[in-house]
């Protein structure tokens, strides 16, 4: 399913969560990631995120879109191009 992840963490934990997100999703803005994950991948990702963050302080928002669909993406201003598999 298509996933958009947004995080807001204490500065000292930013690097760790960034590294982790990069393994699963495409980095599109400073603290925003998007990409397709299988349900199993999402579950594993969640566990690994919860190990890194401070559950009482940090917040990670995850938007998922129904399987087989992806959100329409509008780019306003300077935006990272949508992730592609042809480089």
């Amino acid at each position, binding site marked *: 399913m298509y996933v958009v992840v947004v995080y807001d963490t204490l500065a000292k934990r930013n690097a760790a969560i960034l590294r982790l997100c990069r393994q699963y999703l495409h980095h599109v803005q400073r603290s925003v990631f998007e990409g397709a994950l299988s349900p199993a991948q999402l579950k594993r990702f969640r566990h690994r995120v919860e190990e890194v963050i401070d559950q009482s302080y940090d917040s990670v928002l995850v938007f998922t879109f129904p399987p087989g669909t992806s959100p329409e993406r509008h780019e306003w201003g300077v935006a990272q191009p949508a992730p592609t598999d042809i*480089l």
Partner: protein
Amino acid sequence: MPTAARTYWLTTSCRIRRKDQSLRIERPEGAPVHIPVTDVRDIVACEAVDLNTSVISLLNQHRINVHFLSHYGDYAGSLLTADTSVSGQTVIAQVGLAADQTASLEIARAIVASTAVNVRRVVDRRLLNRPMAVLEASIADATTREQLMGAEGTFRRSAWAVLDTRLPDWLRLDGRSRRPPRNAGNAFISYVNGIIYARMLSAIRLTPLHTGVAFLHSTMERQRHSLVLDLAEVFKPLFAERLLLRLAGRGQLKPAHFETDVNQAMLSETGRKLIVQTVRDELAVTIQHRSLGRNVAYDELLYLEALQLTRRCLEGTPYKPFRIWW
């Protein structure tokens, strides 16, 4: 195929680095791109790519194969991870089948016949009626795989001649040539065939089949995965010939997509991008599968083909190679 992961296509020369337990693609121009390693099923490198040991070990952990196409567009080799689906039983059955003259010839016959059906379906049904009849007779008569290959060659030659009549002058094949392709049409076909070969190799690696033990192509050929050649054969017309006709018909292919020299042609960078994109989109096209009763992407058909052959080896179910049924 099983996971949500995708194939990544590298169409410009670049360096792959390992960064944060994931991949970073660095290109001479433009900012580096990070790609999530869990999203990668395999990589097709269409241009020169640099990578080092630490990348290879990461790719290995995630079971990612990398296929390389040469500058001239033919298949140059693969970086394969250790076999994951290993079953000695299957390999023994496969070898037994290949060693059995009658059984292997039967499979080879089926492959040649299905390939011809697909070619005829794509190129022209009516004009290829006669060559088809000739081919069917020679398939029945053939007693060795060399004879089968010869009969297929004859059929293929007439099919290419018919194909030429439907192409603009500058795209005509004038006989198939490879290494290097002599003209634009040949360069196109070689390139797409190279990609299909790579995809088939990835698909077969998901099954326990041994890629070197083949039924139609010579098992003795070195450094080539002969079984991949066998199974890719039936899919080549679905992609190469069909897309060539389509792109030519729509006027999407332009001379600027090729770099032509005397007696030699290859794709230019824009041409390469166009073809990779077209093949990528074509692989994602789905079709209602008759026996599975669900939609199946063309890409998955390659995997199903490999599974079918596994079945033939283990359970003796008759092997019916892929035929375009729509």
